[in-house]
């Protein structure tokens, strides 16, 4: 009888050790997953953990910094050459938007119109092209109709030129759909010539250094949702207590 009790005690002890080991292993896995998801910061630091590659992996030569400082993009409201009243989204959408600010009367735009007509330039995968001219009161719709192929999205919107602070035509802006920020802008004589800028901007959007950690993104979305449900929207004065309102 005593021998049986001793055997039971030993078995219980072994089981207890096994359970403790399993729990410890489980906690370790959870901790590692949490770290991978950017859930913790090194003790004593206030910012993001420093970027580093795993052992044996060559670090990228150039890291993308200041992403949060990129200028905000804007949705585009206007009319098309068919008379459509349109609202085009560039913010909070799945794809990037390449916005080409062109004019029918601008000499420098000829190369862009030519490439649109002969389809010698292809929009990068994962992005969308929108040509934006000034409104019908400042542009010639009939000339635009001759220059722009019908399957190219052209929106006439003077407001968009103001929103994006376009210095003149031609001008190309690449808007990041996920962040709603401008990640590239500049001018040139054709899509091909500014292609480097466009391709780099679109490719940067898929760069691991740019992709926000999932936990961070979820947190930002949750905070926005809470604020919106409380009736606090973008530019609400309560978000800017020191200044009394957005700039």
């Amino acid at each position, binding site marked *: 009888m005593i021998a049986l009790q001793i055997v039971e005690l030993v078995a219980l002890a072994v089981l207890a050790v096994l359970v403790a080991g399993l729990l410890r292993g489980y906690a370790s896995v959870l901790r590692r997953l949490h770290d991978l998801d950017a859930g913790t910061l090194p003790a004593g630091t206030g910012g993001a953990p420093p970027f580093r590659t795993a052992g044996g992996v060559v670090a990228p030569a150039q890291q993308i910094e200041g992403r949060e400082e990129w200028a*905000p*993009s804007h*949705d585009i*409201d206007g009319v*098309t050459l*068919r*008379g*459509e*009243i*349109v*609202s*085009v*989204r560039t*913010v*909070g*959408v*799945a*794809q990037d938007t390449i916005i080409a600010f062109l004019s029918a009367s601008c000499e420098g735009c000829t190369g862009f119109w030519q490439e649109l007509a002969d389809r010698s330039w292809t929009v990068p995968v994962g992005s*969308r092209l929108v040509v934006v001219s000034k409104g019908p009161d400042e542009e010639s719709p009939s000339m635009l109709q001759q220059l722009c192929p*019908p*399957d*190219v*999205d*052209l929106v006439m919107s003077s407001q968009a030129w103001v929103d994006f602070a376009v210095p003149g035509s031609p001008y190309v802006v690449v808007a990041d759909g996920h*962040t*709603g*920020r401008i990640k590239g802008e500049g001018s040139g004589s054709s899509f091909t010539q500014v292609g480097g800028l466009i391709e780099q901007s679109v490719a940067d959007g898929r760069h691991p250094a740019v992709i926000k950690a999932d936990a961070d993104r979820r947190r*930002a979305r949750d*905070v*926005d949702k809470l*604020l919106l449900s409380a009736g606090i*929207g*973008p530019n609400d004065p309560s*978000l800017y207590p020191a200044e009394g309102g957005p700039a």
Partner: protein
Amino acid sequence: MTGVRPAVRQLSGHGLSIGLLPAWEGRIYRRTVGPAGATAARPQAAGWPGELSHPVLHLANFALPASRGDFGTGAVERMSGDGIFLALLEFGADCLGTALYAPRGLPRISPGQFNPNGMQRRVAGQAGFQHFCTAAGRPFCLYVVIGSHRDAVRLTGTVNSVLDRIEVAA
């Protein structure tokens, strides 16, 4: 606030109005028609020469292409499983009072009303819904396509939220 948030955008024209949900795009147009007797080549969604055209509203939670048919041809093929396309087409006054257009007001849809065969042209995974009605004394056809029939319950909730936001003026 974090990031850049789009404000609610109002799209209005031809007696139709909607407050667009975030990430939703909209377009309101009338089919382009040439003069009676003209024989020019017609772009997509263009009317026949001499045709009396009526307003069309297109809404989608994805990028709407420039060239689309009135019932979304050219657009629905680009939809992901989360995609929703909604078309509201007005018809001529001669339709008023007919049995087809007897239902009053824009409907609210239940998930079971979406049907893979309810598409203008069947697209794998997608399902459609078509309904004729009269709103504010104007005869309409509502046509909705969802990207995933299997996800109809969730997507129908969004569709009804959009329908809640459409205003039709008399």
